[in-house]
């Protein structure tokens, strides 16, 4: 349309104008179709690129060892088998690890959702002394590599002691909170967990984009500030909250940093995935008494199968949530 309009300018003679428009319009529709085709190719190609490794994992997880070395087998295995999945399932101790991961991920993401919504609202709507400094610190917590504070955090939760109360009462050097969900809960509740800076930022931007008149109307009608928050603001913040919840759940699920740091004995999926080859050789050793080393190809096959088992629940959740998630983008308004 722009092209046509541009060309029309200054053409006063009626017949030339109509002829001209006809031609440019044809060219215009042609270029439109051309672009649609190019766009289709690009989009489909990129979608394929993104999905390909996962599709590959699905095929690999049903392959037997012979299929791996067979040159004629590219995707569809000749001897499909559930052997891999069974082996990985027991070596990961999947049900137990799944349950632990689910517990921790669900609790942390709910905690993070609550705390980041509160904090984001506080930053978006109220003016108080030191607000800008505090918000700059939110950005700083994102920049600091978690490795910088990992050892103090580790010791902090190893000898957890709030203001010296525990040592005063019991005479010991604090409580050991490692190997429980408490470090995760405490960090999430105070907006200091994994990537919480980003969630606070998302929530703040969302609340900033909401019209102020809504709240003012509620105040005039006599609602308290807190009531305004949970009756007026929260219901409309659902899209942004879905985004934050999905991010925090997924990233907690696949996180190895905090899990390695706080959980040595409690088994979670992400850590189990990291050590899958070792676990499988151990398992074979216990079953047969033979100490074998896996060939790189076979160990890669187990890793792929295991990683499929780790992300499968996430993909299911994503399929359910993606409708809200993708729709929510339009209203999230993550604008700088």
């Amino acid at each position: 349309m722009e092209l046509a309009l541009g060309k029309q300018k200054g053409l006063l003679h009626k017949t030339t104008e109509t002829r001209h428009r006809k031609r440019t319009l044809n060219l215009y529709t042609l270029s439109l179709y051309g672009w649609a085709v190019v766009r289709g190719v690009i989009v489909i190609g990129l979608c394929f690129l993104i999905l390909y490794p996962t599709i590959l994992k699905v095929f690999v997880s049903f392959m037997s060892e012979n299929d791996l070395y067979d040159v004629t087998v590219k995707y569809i295995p000749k001897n499909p088998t559930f052997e891999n999945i069974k082996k990985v399932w027991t070596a990961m101790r999947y049900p137990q690890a799944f349950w632990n991961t689910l517990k921790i991920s669900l609790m942390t993401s709910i905690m993070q959702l609550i705390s980041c919504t509160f904090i984001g609202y506080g930053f978006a709507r109220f003016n108080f002394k030191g607000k800008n400094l505090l918000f700059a610190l939110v950005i700083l917590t994102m920049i600091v590599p978690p490795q910088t504070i990992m050892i103090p955090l580790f010791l902090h939760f190893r000898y957890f002691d709030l203001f010296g109360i525990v040592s005063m009462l019991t005479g010991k050097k604090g409580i050991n909170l490692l190997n429980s969900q408490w470090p995760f809960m405490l960090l999430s509740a105070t907006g200091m967990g994994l990537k919480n800076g980003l969630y606070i930022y998302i929530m703040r931007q969302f609340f900033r984009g909401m019209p102020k008149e809504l709240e003012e109307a509620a105040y005039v009608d006599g609602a308290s500030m807190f009531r305004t928050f949970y009756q007026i603001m929260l219901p409309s913040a659902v899209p942004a909250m879905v985004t934050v919840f999905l991010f925090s759940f997924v990233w907690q699920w696949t996180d190895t940093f905090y899990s390695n740091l706080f959980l040595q004995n409690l088994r979670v999926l992400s850590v189990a995935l990291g050590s899958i080859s070792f676990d499988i050789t151990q398992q074979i050793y216990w079953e047969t008494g033979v100490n074998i080393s896996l060939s790189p190809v076979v160990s890669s096959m187990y890793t792929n199968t295991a990683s499929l088992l780790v992300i499968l629940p996430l993909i299911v959740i994503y399929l359910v949530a993606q409708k809200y998630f993708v729709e929510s983008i339009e209203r999230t308004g993550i604008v700088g």
Partner: protein
Amino acid sequence: MLLVSTNRGNQAAGRKRRRLTLTSKRAMMGYAFVSPYIIGLIAFFMVPIVQSFIFSLNSFEVVEDGYVLIPNGFEYYRRALFVHPDFVRNLVESLLDMVTNVPLIIIFSFFAANLLNQKFRGRAAARAIFFLPVILMSGVMRTVDSGDLLQSSLGLTQTDSGGGTLQAIELARVLFQTRLDPRFINYIISAVERIYDIVSASGVQILIFLAGLQSIPPSLFEASNIEGATGWENFWKITFPMVSPLILVNTVYTVIDTLTNSSNSVMELIEEIAFSQNNYGFSSAMAWIYFISVMVVVLIIIGIISRSVFYQE
């Protein structure tokens, strides 16, 4: 804040009570909403970061029922920078990697966001797939997949074998005939070879750009169309300036994401020294050097980009 006098206020009934103004009341509510963050900031960020700095200046000895610190000066910093065989090399390499990857990720995600912002059939499905890497390439998955043998032998991630590289050679031949600067051509070829890494690192960035694109008021485009602007002009005069603040946000996010993800080689080294060798002091010193380099990089980037960013307000 000055008007808080609730001690006496309630008891004396007929007395004129000084009440909080709305502004200070709102300030109090603001503190109430942000209070969890203030607690967390002090307990789980400020204190640990100071402690970590102290650790980096001391050698750390675990004794029964706790630990003792033995002053060590800047010895660990010297060792990290001048003695350790891998640290500086890894640091420089990951910074260089970042410098080549970040522009590609930003350009790609901006392109993809523009693509997904157009109307076409199957757009919802395409969007869902484009954001999938947020799940597929997070945390442990990124670490596992990046070094995986089967994935690379079947021709996706960058290796010497497989179909991907062959096509890149074809492309290289075509490109070299155009007589562009060879450095530029090499950059493009390396981008093509790493396309999967780039696509899978741009999920969040596409999301942010897309949200930005959708917040541009359509009336701007209508007005410029009536004035006779072409699509190309619209893009550079409206879309680009309106989204430019997000280029800054996205660049900073991408830099942080590539430099602090757990598959980064420096990060792995720091963790290994802390937990395999139990050398907490040395690892803290390395983490501080790394933190300062990341900080400097981010500040430089903010300094460069924020000059050319257009703000509506």
